[in-house]
């Protein structure tokens, strides 16, 4: 029984780390959504405590929001003790989530007609904890308005009139609200609003894109700057972005979105930024992993889908730079045989088996495989190689081998596994890799449910302490 519970939980954690209910290379969005939804309901029904505890782990924001929604929708099934524990976890996780995700969650709760007392209290408390309510009211106007109405919260001061009866006011005392009012007819005020709001006013005032970008630049967030790089260049405007301060997970897709000639031209800058991000992510563990061989998948399936463009390849690229920092001696092996990581692009079949053999020939201390697990040249070779190698050539498990999979397989309710002998864990952010490799020991099936439970409790305690 415990073994099944442990299996189910690991499967759920893998799914919650990787899946975003979006289209993947091998599966449609509907399959992903249905599959993930079922998995959530199953885990919620059978292991409610652990389901809530998953909020403390490195799962992605989409799944965190989904967990919160499902927990709140089934409040009636929880005991008083459970409610208390869940409440703390939910409040903590909501504080960590980006606000737009939280407003989306509130909207989903409203649509699902979840309006119990606990839900209202959680919305009220979360809003009370927001650092700048006026900023939220301008940037997330509709989201906030609906959330407040849903939770029966009357906001203080000018926010109420601003949100609910804006036409009645001639002026506001709060500077940001006043700017917003002025922006309707005064172009200069547009540039003092958050970028997303200003964009709407710019369209209203028919402001030229290049001029707009140039003047709104100081108000842009870090990720907005990164996102508009290419469109700004097309519009002959320059938006300064400090690549050196970007996290690895954001930097890798950006690099892959650039055409190859440009990557060649900007090689120094891009490599430098990726290295700097990797050094930051590796932290004190840098150089402590000994000889590392990595098999990185850049086959055609790493191109992801229209919604998750080049996501699997971006994870592989980020892992490449991170592992280079973590390792004392590092051997990267791309499935295509390419050696220049910066110019990676998804093409060709997936000869994982051969690359694993190549990697093992370097006699590494650690073997990491970053792949979606569709080993097709030929099918099952990687699995057989790993099985025979573990059984015959490395029975003492001297080499730590871990398969990191960035893609959720809707049919299996889990990430695709390569071999029973090698643990597979879902991965989303390369920064989590050291933690995931530690977590992988649970998926090998040699630790009990008690260990897993202890790990969860430990993570929950730390998570709540941090916030």
């Amino acid at each position, binding site marked *: 029984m415990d073994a099944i519970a442990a299996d189910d939980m690991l499967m759920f954690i893998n799914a919650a780390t990787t899946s975003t209910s979006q289209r993947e*290379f*091998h599966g449609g969005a509907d399959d992903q959504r249905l599959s993930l939804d079922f998995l959530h309901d199953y885990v919620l029904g059978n292991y409610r405590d652990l389901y809530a505890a998953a909020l403390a782990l490195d799962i992605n924001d989409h799944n965190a929001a989904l967990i919160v929604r499902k927990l709140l929708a089934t409040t009636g099934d929880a005991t008083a003790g459970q409610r208390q524990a869940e409440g703390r976890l939910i409040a903590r996780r909501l504080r960590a989530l980006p606000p737009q995700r939280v407003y989306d969650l509130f909207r989903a709760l409203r649509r699902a007609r979840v309006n119990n007392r606990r839900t209202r209290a959680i919305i009220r408390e979360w809003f009370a904890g927001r650092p700048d309510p006026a900023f939220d009211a301008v940037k997330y106007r509709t989201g906030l308005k609906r959330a407040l109405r849903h939770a029966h919260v009357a906001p203080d001061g000018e926010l109420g009139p601003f949100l609910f009866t804006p036409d009645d006011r001639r002026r506001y005392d709060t500077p940001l609200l006043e700017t917003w009012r002025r922006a309707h007819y005064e172009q200069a005020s547009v540039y003092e609003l958050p970028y997303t709001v200003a964009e709407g006013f710019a369209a209203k005032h028919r402001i030229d894109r290049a001029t707009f970008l140039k003047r709104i630049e100081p108000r842009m967030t870090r990720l907005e700057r990164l996102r508009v790089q290419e469109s700004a260049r097309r519009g002959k405007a320059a938006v300064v972005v400090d690549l050196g301060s970007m996290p690895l997970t954001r930097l890798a897709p950006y690099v892959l979105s650039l055409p190859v000639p440009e990557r060649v031209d900007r090689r120094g800058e891009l490599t430098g930024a990726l290295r700097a991000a990797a050094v930051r992510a590796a932290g004190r563990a840098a150089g402590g992993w000994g000889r590392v061989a990595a098999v990185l998948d850049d*086959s*055609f*399936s790493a191109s992801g889908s229209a919604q998750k463009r080049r996501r699997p390849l971006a994870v592989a690229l980020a892992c490449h730079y991170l592992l280079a920092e973590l390792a004392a001696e590092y051997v990267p092996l791309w499935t*295509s045989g390419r050696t220049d990581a910066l110019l990676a692009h998804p*093409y*060709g*079949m*997936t000869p994982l*088996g*051969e690359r694993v*053999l190549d990697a*093992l*020939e370097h006699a590494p201390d650690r073997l990491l495989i970053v792949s979606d697990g569709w080993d*097709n*040249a*030929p*099918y*099952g*070779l990687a*699995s*057989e*190689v790993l*099985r*025979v*190698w573990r*059984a*015959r*050539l490395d029975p003492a498990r001297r080499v730590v081998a871990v398969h990191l999979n960035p893609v959720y397989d809707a049919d299996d309710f889990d990430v695709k596994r390569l071999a029973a002998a090698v643990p597979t864990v879902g991965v989303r952010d390369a920064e989590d890799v050291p933690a995931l490799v530690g977590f992988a020991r649970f998926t090998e099936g040699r630790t009990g449910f008690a260990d897993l439970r202890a790990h969860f409790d430990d993570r929950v305690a730390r998570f709540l302490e941090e916030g």
Partner: protein
Amino acid sequence: MRLDLTGLTTRAAQVWGGVRLVPLTRDEPITGLRLHARAYGDDPGLVEVGRRTHYVSYIPHGFVATWTDDDTPVAAYGTQLNAHGTSVKRGATGDEPPAHGMRLRFHRRMARRVDRNRLRFLPLHLAVEGYLALHFGGPEVVWEEWSQRAIRRGLSPRVEEAYAGVEVAGLVDALKHFEIHPGQCGVLVYVADALASAFVVPHPDDYRALHATLVQDMYGELVHYYATLATPAPRFDVRLPDDVASLADLRAAAAREQAEWARFHDATMADGLLGESYATNRVYRMGDYALSRFLPTFRLKQENHIGELITDRDGRTAYLKTFRLSESQIRRGHLLTTLAAHHWHLPTTATALGVTDAQLGLRLQAAGFGALLREDVLSHYRAG
């Protein structure tokens, strides 16, 4: 003649549902001949194949072959040709479709030279036309059983049906999820593990460009049925032996497995295509290369493929595209070739087939050739 796939290596297959795609790679791509696609849109095409013979079909695309007389490389011509060839973009040359009725696209001949070293041909239609034109002229001796119509007009109009690739369940997804090998120059398409089509091009770049045209090709009724009713095809996962002492052993075992698959595939799975002999008919000669189409010997209840190929001087395949005939098409081909072999004389043909005259007459009718026989002869057969 047999098909010669020298220079092409069979690689590991990729399976999606009931469709298995077996890639073929070339170690040395052919650079003296290049192919590229030309899209024709969704209008039905009408091809003038002879002086008063026309071929009407849905022709979504054509291929253009460019070659050099010495073996120097040529570049794939790409979309530039569209600018001064038959226009694909409507409006660009002002040939707007009419508001009412059906637009026809006219093609002169199946294969037509468009420039000095460039040939436009209609893939697969070339082969299908060869099959349709089989003994198209009708009886060559006026035996009394044949109707006036058969004698005057032969088999005209001769009609066959096929399905477009998009109608073949699972084929679109299989092609979409297929990971093209770097040196890939061809693919064999299996539906429910029956060989549906073979496609070979001279150069990997051509293959990349033409991979998607497989969904626009024709597939026989049999393939369509198999695809609709197919259960997922087995993946044939690799099994490695446990008795290895080193990584080198493991690598050798893996290589053995790969070679074993290639051998099994060529000798067993593709035997129906590669193991048979074909009657070829040269259509066009371009420098060192020859475009021809081929017909099978019409063996009943077995695999029969028709197709077209471009071969070099040594007979090696530079381009190949095949169409698998369905059972009734094989029967029709078989009947026609047997009749022609016996100079359209019913009694001798019947003896050769081991049936009575009446049975042969009814068989002709069942195959859709009833109009060739005189009405009274046919009713006599029915009564008898």
